[in-house]
């Protein structure tokens, strides 16, 4: 459904992304891993059409409406919301038009799935916990039923236990709603546990693309091994006995 074909992005003469190609099937999950500065956020910007590509193209075949964009979940949960608006207003914003009874129904169903008490919707972003704020961000991304959701480091602001809980909820929602997910993360543990495929981005290029479990067991490139071994060493991954 999402096709990224040979995109290159330059910033001030220096290439930030170079000939990056990716594909994502409906309902599938792709994790893009890499270090800071590898071009992960630029890739998201390019897919959203916020950053102009010097070459290549991003196509989204079965978009529900011609002008529809993928939904986005951002890294800093609180910064992702207008601090002066209630979460309800921010969350309902993607719907544009007056919320119908069906929309409200869907809102409460999603709240339930994300383990958010509906009363939290009437609070401001700084009146909920950071984990709750991030789940509100996910709720906003899902409300408009976009079949593609981009996650930009969705867990890095959360503590270890909350990360895992949130990852589980994202995965459950995916099972329920059927959206495809592109997850940008530096956490190989998360990628290995929840993605179907892992793309390793390094200095603007795709260094390696593998099935997630296969990558953890045997990375194909030296850099892939470096990343995996660092994850082992930090306890983000356990060595398979």
């Amino acid at each position, binding site marked *: 459904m999402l096709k990224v074909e040979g995109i290159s992005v330059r910033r001030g003469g220096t290439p930030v992304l170079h000939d990056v190609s990716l594909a994502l099937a409906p309902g599938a999950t792709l994790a893009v891993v890499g*270090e*800071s500065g590898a071009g992960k956020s630029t890739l998201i910007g390019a897919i959203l059409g916020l950053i102009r590509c010097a070459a290549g193209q991003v196509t989204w075949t079965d978009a529900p409406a011609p002008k529809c964009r993928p939904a986005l979940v951002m890294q800093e949960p609180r910064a992702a919301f207008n601090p002066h608006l209630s979460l309800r207003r921010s969350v309902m914003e993607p719907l544009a038009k007056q919320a119908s009874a069906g929309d409200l129904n869907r809102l409460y169903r999603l709240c339930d799935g994300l383990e958010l008490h509906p009363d939290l919707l009437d609070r401001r972003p700084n009146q909920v916990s*950071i984990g709750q704020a991030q789940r509100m961000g996910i709720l906003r991304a899902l409300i408009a039923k976009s079949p593609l959701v981009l996650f930009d480091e969705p867990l890095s602001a*959360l*503590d*270890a*236990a*909350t*990360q*895992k*809980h949130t*990852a*589980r909820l994202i995965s459950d929602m995916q099972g329920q709603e059927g959206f495809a997910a592109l997850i940008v993360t*530096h*956490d*190989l*543990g*998360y990628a*290995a*546990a929840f993605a179907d495929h892992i793309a390793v981005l390094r200095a603007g290029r795709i260094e390696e693309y593998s099935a997630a479990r296969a990558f953890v067991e045997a990375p194909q490139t030296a850099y892939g091994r*470096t*990343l995996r*071994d*660092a*994850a082992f*060493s*930090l*306890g*983000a*991954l*356990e060595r398979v006995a």
Partner: protein
Amino acid sequence: MTFTANGLSAVRSGRTILHPTDVTLKPGERVGLVGASGSGKSTLGHALVDGLRGAGTAVAHVPQSPDEALDPLRSMAYHWREAEIALGLAPDASRRTHLFEALQIGHGDMRKRPWGWSRGMQQRFVIAMALIGTPGVLVMDEPTSALDPVVAAGTMDLLEDYLAGRQTALVLITHDLGLAARRVSRLMVMDAGRIVEDAPTTRFLAAPATRAAKALCAHRNWLQLPC
């Protein structure tokens, strides 16, 4: 001989965020201080540094991010010299070379200011600075979370190699039990401003007793999450 700090506590705007706590560390020990965010582990870390110093132990603290340790307007050389003066030490080029080599930052330009160095190198510089006075206790607050995994793992490995065989006790503060479990031999679990569990790592992982510890253990490994 042990390092002991008794009656550590903290109150912020009328609320007790750290209940009176005693901490005893053995020389050369590797201790993990783990807990969810808001459990009071950083507060205990700060109180531990102040308490141990008050008790006459040489102690050093490495904050989570180099931004919390270095003044962007001052050069690296300035920071280094200032840290030496604070410890009452004369400048010693060989000590610096030795620490820089151990942490692999010997190629860094000392005339530059922090932002002239990469974040990973800044963090190693802060660690090297913490080791100047060969402290009895080194407290590290979330040493990996501000760095890329590859850099963080490399830094931790270099630090462990340096500390091996030395008397310095390491206290690793982290929310990530997976990280702590790989790096320390004793775990202290914090919950709501108290240490609720304190046990050798292997025993702790095999049989966590409290609710907070069980939650941490259950969410330790990405590939074996409870459903």
